[in-house]
């Protein structure tokens, strides 16, 4: 059974701090790893990673994948209160239907 584990489950930081969120996975037929931000109900797409060692960057957010060690990290620099959300990691195992297997998420709270 495909498995995605995120850590920490929750995190409280002050504005301006840098955070690193972790995601490890065990899947039978890896295709891609995706990160989403969920503030209320709709997860919002952040990154899709398919190759090891290539950093994807968008503003203050960046992410990288290690396919040998089966994990990914999501970094957020100079955090702002608007970064407060649940960050979800998901793996597409390509098992026919391209369904995503999600972790439980990391709840990030950024306080002023």
């Amino acid at each position: 059974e495909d498995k995605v584990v995120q850590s920490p489950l929750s995190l409280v930081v002050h504005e301006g701090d840098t955070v690193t969120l972790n995601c490890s996975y065990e899947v039978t037929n890896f295709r891609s790893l995706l990160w989403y931000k969920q503030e209320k109900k709709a997860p919002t797409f952040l990154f899709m990673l398919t190759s090891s060692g290539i950093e994807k960057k968008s503003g203050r957010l960046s992410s990288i994948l290690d396919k040998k060690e089966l994990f990914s990290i999501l970094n957020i620099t100079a955090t702002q209160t608007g970064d407060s959300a649940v960050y979800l990691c998901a793996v597409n195992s390509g098992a026919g239907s391209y369904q995503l297997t999600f972790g439980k998420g990391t709840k990030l709270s950024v306080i002023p």
Partner: protein
Amino acid sequence: GAGVSQSPRYKVAKRGQDVALRCDPISGHVSLFWYQQALGQGPEFLTYFQNEAQLDKSGLPSDRFFAERPEGSVSTLKIQRTQQEDSAVYLCASSPGQAYGYTFGSGTRLTVV
């Protein structure tokens, strides 16, 4: 439309009642997925459509759950004889193809009382 639209936003059902949840995907998106998200958990896969064909329904928790997408656009998730454990947010997502990230709708929060 510009995004994935789901209705209703909230639904309260009495135990044993049937419910129907609607998803209107982004126009032209071939792939459509339904996920169930319990409180404090990540979304869990329910079913997948490619156009009108339901290619995977392995995540549907019981035969009380049924999904359709008859014309390859709008999809309906039906839950018969709702139980308390069905209470969750039901998320719909669509994608233009297999190599792309999904776009999720805002979900329907179902509460069974």
